[in-house]
């Protein structure tokens, strides 16, 4: 009768707490409203009309690191800016992830000189690197989806 007859052959969906939590985390991963250089403009493009990051539950940029889950390092990181980025990362609450967007953030890019940190992974751990100078919004989306795949395989105990 009623609901039970309609559900009929659907059976029971089983899951683990871990999978359910990770699924939730990938669905609303709030990025930090943070931009360094050129890549930040492509990041803005990804947020805006044509690419629309809100499809992935990411339209809500938080300006304070305390409310953010994801740090997208978008652009070249200078030696003067490095302590600031480290502090922002430290202020983010766990669980937290980092995407290194673009060549400069990943490895220094074309700037092998006195001013630029040769990759943001010298100061913070990075989950996903995105190549490109700057990466197209599609590449950023691919990076974010790659991070989602990674998050789906994470164990809660690792964050505890």
């Amino acid at each position: 009768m009623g609901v039970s007859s309609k559900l009929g052959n659907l059976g029971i969906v089983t899951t683990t707490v871990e999978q359910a939590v990770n699924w939730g985390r990938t669905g609303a991963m709030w990025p930090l409203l943070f931009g360094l250089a050129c890549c930040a403009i492509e990041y803005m493009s990804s947020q805006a009309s044509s690419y629309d990051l809100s499809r992935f539950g990411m339209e809500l940029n938080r300006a304070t690191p305390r409310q953010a889950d994801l740090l997208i390092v978008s652009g070249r990181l200078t030696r003067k800016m490095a302590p600031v980025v480290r502090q922002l990362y430290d202020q983010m609450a766990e669980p937290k992830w980092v995407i290194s967007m673009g060549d400069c953030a990943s490895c220094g890019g074309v700037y092998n000189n006195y001013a630029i940190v040769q990759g943001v992974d010298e100061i913070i751990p990075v989950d996903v690197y995105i190549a490109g100078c700057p990466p197209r919004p599609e590449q950023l989306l691919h990076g974010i989806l790659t991070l989602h795949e990674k998050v789906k395989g994470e164990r809660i105990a690792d964050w505890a």
Partner: protein
Amino acid sequence: MAVAEPTQSIEEQRRWEGSLDELRGLVSERAITGETMLLNMGPHHPSTHGVLRLLLELDGEQIVTCLPDIGFLHTGIEKSIEDKSYEKAVPLTDRMDYLSPMSNNMAFSAAVEKLLDLDVPERGQIIRVICLELARCASHLVWLGTHAIDMGAMSVLLYAFRERERILGMFEMLSGQRMMSSYIRPGGVWRDVPADFLPTIKQFLNDFPAKVDDYEALLTKNPIWRDRAQGVGVIEPDVALAYGMTGPALRGSGVNWDLRKAQPYCGYETYEFNVPLGEHGDVYDRYLIRIHEFRESMKILNQAVARLETEKGPFRSENHKYCPPLRSELGQSMEAVIHHFKLWTYGYDAPDDEIYNAIESPRGEIGCYIHGTGANKPRRVHFKTPSFIHISALPVVAKGYLLADMVAIIGSVDIVLGDCDR
């Protein structure tokens, strides 16, 4: 996953080892006694348009002193160019003012051409004008969207970026890259426009004026926008001139100075367009000027597209000591192969001389100083960039306004930190 341990403990990070004495002379004595408040704005702040840090001294909400702290995006581009041949330096110039890379390419290329006394054929000049005006529109669109967000109008960004994507699509068509195009090079442009470029830009020119009307409908008569913008951040003409401001920030104060008219380049003197001028020098006037500049750019683009259809000459100089031959010639001509090999390995020698050349970027005068050595690399390259000048004027402009107005002022002078710090 492994999380790196912080290098310092939280207590160590919080401990401030500086002394207020360091600020003596920069802020008023009342800040030292604690009567006024010192507030740190940035370098991580959503409304500083990048990584600008401002140290503000506040009396209540009123700004008493504003001390800009720049250099958070200092990339050493000028120094890096000293180690590159002239052609290879062009991609580095892209990444200074990342909202209008074409203007940077143009400033550098025009300076190199002046140094080498290199001519640019007519078709190359027309393509350059098209690129520069499209870049002006793209840059103003980002400015419009972010400025509006800063002031609380969220939806404008979505409209502005919709049109910007179309311009970036055209840049990609021309150069293969959306943003960092490196398309304008010494002697002309990288390659001729593809066949489907003209229909695309015509369609865009047909659609865009109505979109500008849409932006105006959202903002120009909006009472909230007017309250936030009118009478705020007034720059007197003599102050603007004394600080060397250029571009819309100067023209908003009513000073008629546009390098496209005053020192024409790329044949701008042959195009018909007006230079919009403001009256009050406030945030609202600077907004109106950029909106009018969309329309003036459309005028120039329409004329340039008409010329491009009839002008069928070469798109870059045929002086193969400085400009590579066409790829199609490489299979037939040994001489072309030699020129190509020489240009992409060694480059070319430029005279031991110094020159300065300036163009009108969307933000103002972007000038390039080059000191050649007689060999294939420059001794010194320096860029005079509008954002640096405008940030240096911020303390004067911001004085006496409220903290919330600071956001409007920063947005209205349209600074790009990559342009400022380089």
